[in-house]
């Protein structure tokens, strides 16, 4: 199964509540997948700053040393540790941070990198994951969450969603792809790097590669309809936007709601019932093979 939620805020007054609203939505979807859970939150960017969210299986050792190691390497950065994750806020570029991590902390994995995005994901139920990372206190403009019932790869932190394969990009998936091995080989030839055997990571990397060729997210999602084979309902986040795509068969459930204040996505209507003014929202089922996209920058 798997459960997906997404929330894109139009009304800035709701931004302080983003983490709380999204957490409630995700916890409601717990019985669609108990294996692992993850959430991506897009917060306010700071000009010239990069946020790198990292995870370690040995946070006591790795994350405690990050601040001093970054300073020693001459990288100006502040580090906020949250349980197994840490957010590195830096003016350096992502390649510099990755190089340091690879040399000093090879077990530390990058969950996401970008000006706005932070991704937190772990094995366990949504309630536990949300509490471990204090997601309810987070504010932001939009966010995506996923609770997983694993089919295509092992139940691990890295196999949890959202998957991020490009700056400020992330993707969650309900379904299973059938041509991901072939597509992964093609993308590897295009110099994309993969961390798992997971089908969803291939979909995320595919969109990243298409956008790197100059497509916008709407165009990348449109070409995904031709190039991805299998079952999927995707919810995709970018720095300023939020997209939804279902495969032409559309057997994986999806419900959307829109008001003047927000656009929301849920695998089921249950996930949406706690949102403000839901009784007055336009609620509909997204059409198969149809790209939906909202963008605050107007650059879909």
């Amino acid at each position, binding site marked *: 199964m798997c459960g997906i939620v997404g929330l894109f805020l139009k009304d800035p007054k709701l931004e302080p509540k983003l983490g709380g609203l999204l957490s409630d939505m995700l916890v409601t979807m717990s019985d669609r997948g108990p294996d692992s859970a993850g959430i991506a939150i897009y917060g306010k960017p700071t000009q010239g700053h990069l946020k790198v969210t990292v995870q370690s299986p040995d946070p006591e050792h790795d994350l405690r040393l990050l601040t001093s190691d970054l300073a020693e390497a001459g990288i100006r950065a502040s580090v906020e540790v949250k349980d197994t994750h840490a957010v590195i806020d830096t003016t350096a570029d992502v390649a510099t941070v990755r190089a340091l991590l690879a040399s000093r902390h090879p077990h530390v994995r990058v969950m996401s990198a970008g000006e706005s995005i932070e991704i937190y994901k772990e094995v366990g139920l949504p309630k536990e994951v949300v509490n471990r990372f204090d997601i309810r206190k987070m504010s932001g403009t939009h966010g995506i969450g996923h609770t997983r019932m694993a089919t295509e790869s092992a139940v691990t932190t890295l196999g949890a969603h959202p998957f991020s394969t490009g700056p400020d990009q992330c993707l969650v998936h309900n379904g299973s792809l059938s041509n991901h091995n072939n597509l992964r080989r093609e993308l590897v030839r295009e110099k994309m790097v993969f961390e798992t055997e997971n089908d969803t990571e291939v979909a995320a990397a595919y969109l990243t590669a298409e956008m790197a060729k100059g497509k916008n997210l709407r165009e990348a999602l449109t070409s995904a309809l031709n190039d991805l084979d299998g079952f999927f309902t995707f919810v995709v986040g970018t720095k300023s936007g939020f997209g939804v795509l279902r495969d032409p068969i559309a*057997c994986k*459930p999806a419900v959307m709601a829109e008001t003047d204040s927000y656009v929301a996505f849920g695998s*089921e209507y*249950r996930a*949406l*019932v706690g949102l403000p003014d839901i009784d007055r929202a336009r*609620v*509909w089922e997204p*059409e*198969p093979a149809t790209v939906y996209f909202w963008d605050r920058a107007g650059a879909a």
Partner: protein
Amino acid sequence: MPNFDLSTTSLRDLNGALHRVEEGSNDIHFDVLNPRGHHAVAVGIAAHLTVDIKGSVGYYCAGMNDGADVVIHGSAGPGVAENMMSGTVVVEGDASQYAGATGRGGLLVIRGNASSRCGISMKGIDIVVQGNIGHMSAFMAQAGNLVVLGNAGDALGDSIYEARLFVRGHVKSLGSDCIEKEMRPEHHEIVADLLRRAGVTGVSPAEFKRYGSARRLYNFHVDNADAY
């Protein structure tokens, strides 16, 4: 008049009460408040009850209904009235995938749109949809009538047996072995009766086209003898 608020009462209590109503009881009208997208609301009723559900429901609402009149004052998730035997189920809003799937009897009315696979494998149920229906509707439909006031999506009636499909609007495409057929007087009567029972007015059976099986797929054809 029993009243169940699903924000304070468990679903099991509601469905248990619906199953325990005895023949001759006067308490046969149930109100269900705050369904909030719950699954399996009012499933498996086997008595002549009326149930008013005041809001939207999730998966499988009124599934296996045998005799009750259920009204959903909201929208329904996947599989509403799945495998209905008798009675009526009315969805005031929209219905998600496979509404009325495998139904053997009764009447399902959807005032809004139904999404994909509406009436899949229907076996005698009657379905009236006032809006549109999605792709692969009436797939392998065996018996019963599907009346659609709006449009139908791709592959309507794919691999259909003997169900009758009546569509007033545009059909995006017909599925394998499904063809348009003549609207004869008996078909006008069927549509008129179903529209009346569904409470639809101002629509004439003459506005509908009929679709059904070309009978090339499920009947033995002598030219295919070598294949056996």
